[in-house]
């Protein structure tokens, strides 16, 4: 629907990128997509770096599936799915934090809960009338359909996450890389773990709008993993991680405006190609 709409209204791609961008920018839905996409890319780049060094990538992936059940449930009772996402991912993240960091690495248990939540989401979606569209946009993202209200929620959530991450930066790094010494230095591992998992829950919730539940890995983990592979200093790693996720998000939006395939396809493909490229660089 939206894609066919673009095809009929958009002007064709020319090699004059400025005028291409200007023609794209006429549409409010493209502006909203860029605004939300930019906020989400910055947040995912920062939080993703810690997800990678804390070895929580599977937990992050599972968290988005927990959020799927929440979003579908919210849609069913007529509430903004973003609130359902936030509620369920927060609950899931608290449970993971309470079980301890080692529990977050237990992939069988996490995978079992993941599958159950996905199943629950399928039930909610099938009970809901707008079945196919809603399910599709939750699973694979529908950033071109984002409303101005969602942009504002994303902005508030994004600013909150970035401020909290800046405050916790060194403690997060210390506990991620050297938990025993950090604990001996007086840092509360449990409190910090709960704090981080909540930030991850909010970050996951807003990122679902862009790439959807199933593709969250590509935005939350792949750019950060690429950055961590290339940069040996945490600050450089985070900056690079943000740069990559911004690049793939912008590129995805721009390309999909002219080539009528899903935005998330272009985003995950760009992230994938950069990741493979970084692995091919010989180690120094």
């Amino acid at each position, binding site marked *: 629907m939206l894609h066919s709409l673009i095809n009929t209204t958009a002007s064709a791609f020319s090699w004059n990128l400025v005028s291409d961008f200007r023609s794209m920018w006429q549409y409010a839905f493209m502006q909203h997509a860029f605004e939300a996409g930019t906020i989400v890319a910055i947040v995912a780049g920062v939080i993703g770096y810690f997800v990678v060094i804390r070895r929580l990538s599977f937990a992050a992936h599972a968290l988005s599936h927990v959020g799927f059940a929440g979003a579908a449930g919210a849609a069913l009772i007529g509430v903004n799915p973003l609130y359902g996402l936030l509620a369920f991912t927060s609950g899931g993240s608290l449970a993971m934090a309470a079980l301890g960091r080692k529990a977050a690495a237990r992939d069988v248990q996490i995978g079992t809960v993941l599958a159950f939540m996905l199943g629950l989401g399928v039930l909610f979606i099938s009970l809901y009338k707008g079945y196919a569209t809603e399910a599709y946009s939750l699973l694979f993202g529908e950033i071109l359909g984002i409303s101005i209200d969602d942009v504002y929620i994303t902005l508030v959530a994004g600013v909150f996450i970035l401020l909290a991450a800046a405050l916790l930066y060194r403690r997060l790094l210390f506990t991620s890389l050297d938990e*025993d010494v950090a604990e001996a230095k007086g840092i509360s591992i449990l409190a910090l773990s709960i704090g981080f998992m909540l930030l991850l829950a909010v970050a996951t919730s807003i990122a679902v709008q862009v790439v959807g539940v199933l593709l969250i890995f590509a935005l939350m983990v792949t750019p950060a993993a690429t950055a961590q592979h290339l940069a040996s200093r945490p600050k450089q790693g985070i900056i690079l991680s943000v740069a990559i996720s911004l690049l793939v998000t912008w590129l995805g939006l721009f390309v999909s405006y002219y080539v009528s395939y899903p935005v998330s396809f272009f985003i995950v493909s760009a992230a994938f190609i950069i990741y493979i490229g970084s692995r091919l660089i010989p180690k120094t």
Partner: protein
Amino acid sequence: MAELIRAESLSAGYKSKAIWQDANFVVEKGEFIGLLGANGAGKTTLFRLLLGLEIPLSGKLSIFAKQPERGSPRIGYVPQRRTIDAETKIQALEYVLMGISGNKWGFSLPAQASKEKKQALKALEHVDALGLAHKRLNQLSGGEQQRIFLAQALVGKPDLLLLDEPLANLDIRRETELIRLVQKIAKENNMAVILIAHDINPLLPVVDRIIYIANGKIASGKVDTVVTSDSLSDLYEAPIEVLRDSKGRLAVLGVEEAMHHAS
């Protein structure tokens, strides 16, 4: 000599089930102590008590004439690290920096940051690892990693250094190098060291005293009194032989077999 640690009728364990009990010992300033015992005997538990991470079941433990408290800057701690693997691509300098500012909030201002960096580089210099500052941890050998961890523990100029199995996975030459390095730094700074090891041999030339945990009891003594066939056989509950060579050097046989038996 000034007293650093005093344990009186000290017991440790979980939920009223003691791992070891009724321990009485003293550690003095500048002493180098080897802490021995079979796997699961409660050596790391003693460290966690000293660090204030666990509380005693009963008895008294004082360190720096106070009760142990978490986050004491006077203790340098090198735990048994299992988290360093091929995916830990952080450079050594950043790792050492965490020992200085890892528990602070927010970011350092530029002036503070350069001060911290100087401090970290100095610590690396002390362990002869200045050349490794910008290497990634996953590219370092076991011995090099241990020196980086040591530098991180030393940045605060502690009075007591707790080393948990620093010799694990090192070959004999690296073992000797690391032990000599720790001894040199400890002497220069009048710092006490408690080092957990499962093989006693590399420690024999450097330790002042040995504390050993066996059968739920803790005892301590000078090398000459502890390192005898009888007392070590008791400690490990297996036949152990202590030999003395022509230069008076000691060698202990049978500990490795006893450890495998115990685990």
